[in-house]
C-alpha cells in the first residue's frame, strides 16, 4: 500500500501532457476500430492525434479572452 501511495504521489502530468496522452490512447482505439491494415492504423492514429491537439489548442486560444 505504501508503494502504491508513493507511485501515486510521484506521478505528475501537466495539463498538456494529460491531453496528449488521452488523445494518443483514444486515437489508437479509433484507428483499431476503423482501419484494417497496419499502415492505415499508423496514418489514422497520427491524423487523429494531430486533429485532437490542433482543435484543443484552438479551443484553448478561443477561451483565452474569457480567462482574462
Amino acid at each position, binding site marked *: *500500500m505504501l508503494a*502504491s*501511495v508513493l*507511485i*501515486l504521489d510521484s*506521478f*505528475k*502530468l501537466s*495539463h498538456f501532457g*494529460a491531453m496528449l*496522452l*488521452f488523445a494518443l*490512447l*483514444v486515437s*489508437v*482505439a479509433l*484507428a*483499431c*476500430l476503423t482501419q484494417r491494415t*497496419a499502415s492505415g*492504423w499508423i496514418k489514422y492514429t497520427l491524423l487523429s492525434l494531430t486533429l485532437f491537439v490542433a482543435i484543443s489548442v484552438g479551443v484553448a486560444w478561443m477561451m483565452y479572452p474569457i480567462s482574462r
Partner: protein
Amino acid sequence: MTVNEAPVTGASVHEAPLDHSSIPPPAPAINRTRSVLAPLAAIAGWLVPGLGHLLLGRWGRALGFFVSVGGLAITGYLMRGNVFPPHSSDPFGTLGFLADAASGVFYYFARIAEAAGPDVSRAAGDYGTRFIAAAGVVNVLALFDVLGIAARRRD
C-alpha cells in the same frame, strides 16, 4: 469483342442455367459454433479488453484495444480519479459506475492501483475520473466491434 463474335442475348443466358450442385450447402454445425462464439467473445472482451478480438483471431486489434483501455484506466488511477461504486443514489453516479465497470478487469484492479483513494480536489484527479470513464466507453466500442466481426463471419 471482335466483329465476328455473336452478342450475348437474354435467350442465350437462359439456355445455360447455373449449376447449383457445385455450391456446397451451409454447414449448420459451423454456424452454431460461430453463433455461440459471438456472445462468448463479447463477454471475454468485456472481462479483459482485447480478449474478444483475440478469440476471433484479430491479434492487432486485440493488442490495440488492450493498450488503449489499459493505458486510459491505469493513467486515471495514477491521477487519482474517482471510481464510482456499484450502488449510487444519483443517476450520474449510476452512469459513472456503468462507464467505469465497462473496462472489465481494470475496474476491479482499481482497488489495488488506487489504494490511497481518489483525490478530485486537484485538477489531475478530475481529469483522472474522465480517463477512467473513457476507458470503459472505448471498451464498449470494442465490444460492438467484436459482435460486428462475429456477425460478418456467421453470414
